[in-house]
């Protein structure tokens, strides 16, 4: 997990703070963005190993961003963890259809988050 780079797109500042804390302790570099605007360009610049993406963002939906990524060859295989506060099966299915690698409903256990990200980072490496 060390030296891995994770980009987090999350609009809730407190949640972003918590995730950053949890992942940073493991030696991962975490870059946080509060909005999905210009996500593709940003990711092109950041070249993360894993993307943690909130489903409901104020300006655009996480699903849209994911679909855009999967359409681009550079990110077709990028491991993406989708977070959602709505937690219904519908959202889980929508996320899978859009190409999410993993899915977590808020609120989540810190350990679960860590395990999923670790798994994704290993697969994607």
């Amino acid at each position: 997990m060390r030296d891995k780079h994770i980009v987090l797109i999350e609009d809730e500042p407190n949640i972003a703070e918590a995730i950053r804390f949890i992942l940073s302790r493991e030696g991962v570099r975490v870059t946080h963005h509060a909005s999905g605007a210009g996500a593709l360009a940003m990711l092109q610049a950041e070249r993360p190993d894993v993307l943690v993406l909130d489903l409901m963002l104020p300006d655009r939906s996480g699903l849209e961003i994911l679909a855009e990524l999967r359409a681009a060859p550079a990110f077709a295989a990028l491991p993406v963890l989708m977070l959602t506060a709505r937690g219904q099966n519908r959202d889980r299915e929508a996320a899978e259809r859009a190409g999410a690698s993993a899915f977590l409903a808020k609120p989540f256990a810190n350990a679960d988050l860590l395990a999923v990200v670790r798994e994704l980072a290993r697969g994607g490496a």
Partner: protein
Amino acid sequence: MPFNILVAVSLLYVVVLFGVAFVAERRARGGLAGWLRSPLVYTLSLSIYCTAWTFYGAVGYAARSGLEFLTIYLGPTLVFVGWWWVLRKLVRIGRAQRVTSIADLISSRYGKSNFLGVLVTLMAVLASTPYIALQLQSVTLSFGVFASDTPEGWALPDQGATALWLAAGLTLFTILFGTRNLDANERHHGIVMAIAVEAVVKLVALLAVGIFVVWGVAGGVADVLARIDASAISDWNLKPGRWAGLTFVSAAAILTLPRMFQVMVVENADERHVATASWAFPLYLMLMSLFVVPIAVVGLEIMPAGSNPDLFVLTIPLSAGAGKLALLAFLGGFSSATSMVIVAAIALATMVSNHIVTPLWLALRVGSARAPGDVRGIVLMSRRLSIGAVLALGYTYYHLSGGSAALAAIGLISFVGAAQVLPAMIGGIYWRGATHVGAAMGLITGFGIWLYCLFLPSFGADGLISTQVMAEGPFGIGWLRPQALFGIVGLDPLLHALFWSILLNTATFLIGSLASFPGPMERLQGVAFVNIFDQSSGPGGWVKSAAEAEDLLSMSQRILGPEEAQRFFQAQAAAQGKLGFLPDPTPDFIARLERQLAGSVGAATSHAMIAQLSGGATVSVQDLIAVAGEAQQIKEYSAQLEAKSDELARTARALREANDKLTDLSVQKDAFLSQISHELRTPMTSIRAFSEILMEVDLPDEMRTKYAGIIHDETRRLTRLLDDLLDLSVLENRRVQSNIGVANLHDLLSKAVTSASNTRPDRAFVVQRDAASEHMPVFTDTDRLLQVFINIVSNARKYCDAERAVLRIEVKKRGRIVEIDFIDNGSGIPKKSQALIFEKFARLTDTSHAGGAGLGLAICREIMANLGGSIDYLPGQGGAAFRVRLPLKRAS
């Protein structure tokens, strides 16, 4: 008065009548019948009952027999006032069965028997001919009165010529207007109108003469009464037998005289007219008889002895020098005579042509040309010839008899002859058991007795019956003496003939009917006549049937469907003890089949269809009318079905709309739940994550404090959210407990500004107010109103993005409403979002600063609705602007 002027006036009058008839005919043809078919015209046309016999003869009758003349008016009055339901039934039958004459009525009722038609026609011609002669004579006599110098001299050299001209003129008029068309309903608007005009003329004439006699010749009512008292008429004693007999015979005549039947039934345009006529016609008769006795009494007194009392109506005005009045009286008599002759000629000609000439012609030409157009021409021609023949007969009778008897006597003889139809007619419309045989027997018996006892002897001693026979009976058989049948002597000859003819007529009619069985057609017609007001055609009774069971089956299959038809036929065959599907077509079976089919297609159609297959019976016009009626019902029913299906479509549309609404609501509910879930889970995520962090790691104190602070904030956020949700739920259900109080608006605004100041307290924020305009009391739920104000001010503090944020509060009073505008100097809300901001969870920007769940404005809107006011976004103010409208007093 010069004879030429008289002729000229008569001709002019005739020309006017022609004109009236012509115009009426034109209007009727143009569909402008209108008042031509009024009850008044109907009633006036009935007045052909009052012929020249009534016009001239009643006075003579009164002079000879006192008040007995009243019986002639009494009979019809009784019928019209007391028995009008008989008339109504006759009229209804006449219209339903398309009856063209009284002979047709009898023939049609008794199974369309042409024998009866011929019989009644012959009787009618025989009884009416003297009557027509009588009219010719009365007109000729009245001409004579004017022509001679002395009132009593009425012998005119060319008397015969006058009658001949008259007969020819009447023939022309009748043919012109009586045979113009051959409508099924046989109505003659022109003639009816002319008759109505003549009815007025004769009434006016008689009343004028009466008034002249009472107030011109005599000295008024009292004087006339005194003269009556002094005259022989007051010595008259009522003879009960004769009184009752004459009343009866005139009552019968009004129903059975061919001409009365013609105007009463055939020419009737509307059944309701009978109701009017039931009082108006007796009134007419009453007016006609009003002055009869005064004229008779004064005439007897002032006219020379030996003058003919039948002509008093003319001779009194003449002798008093009132020439013009005499002329009017002459026209009255002329009208009476001509109208009767015209209608009688039409009625008789219809009968003769329909029952004698046309059947004869068809019988002679059977097998050759049978084109309908051909027959039509024949019928018209035969009718025209018949009119000529009837008038020629009348003229011949007049020529031969030459004024043999007093006018009234001929009239009564004719009445008794016509009355012979009464038993067959009344029996036919009220008794289903009356048969053809009974009717024929009754008619022949009654008519024979009338001929023998009354008609033939009326030609005078040694006229047609020798004096010897009169005195001793034929072949010396005493009990067959014409005026003393069965040895009953001393009876008045008229009463004697009436009594025996009607008695034996009725008796043989009853016996004959009971002893014989009606044929199928007769039974059908009997039901149709007797039950005319039920109008159900009833069971026809298929006595003998040529229908083949196979034909019946194939027809039934089309109507009932193959399975049901086969089942029915099989069951019927089994009931007859036969195997298979084809029962014998017994009458019983066919009747049952007809009922079965009637359930599907209606009684009349079923009857008509079976009739076609069973051959013998014909489909009557009434059957066809009933079929049409049922078809109409089916049409109406299908229209109802159509309406129902429209209604169903409307219901379906409403249901679809309701369903759309429900689906919409369900989508909204899902979105709402999903939103709540998101709003609850978001703070809980932070709380959980940080509490786990705090639990497992050793953290520096400052971080521990920071994370505990986050947890604390997030729990407060959760609590606020839950409070808002509950608040909104209560408000939306309108279950809010209003806590009405009074407060100064200025104080409320100040409190709101203060309370909101802890929202982004770090920020410089200027509130501009005009205290003077804010001071006013508001009666409302002040806590709720304050909540709205705080919300708006906090929003401004949160979202106003100006460098130096300024909020302006303006208060305006508009009548009983106060408007409070909150306007900031930020960039405002984009137009497309203005409609959204009052919706739940409609947070426009990123949540980081908001600290709420986006329910604030939704709650504000609900509160203002609860307070009877409103909150709206005010566009075009430079920044975000909200207007709160509030009634100064909350209506409870």
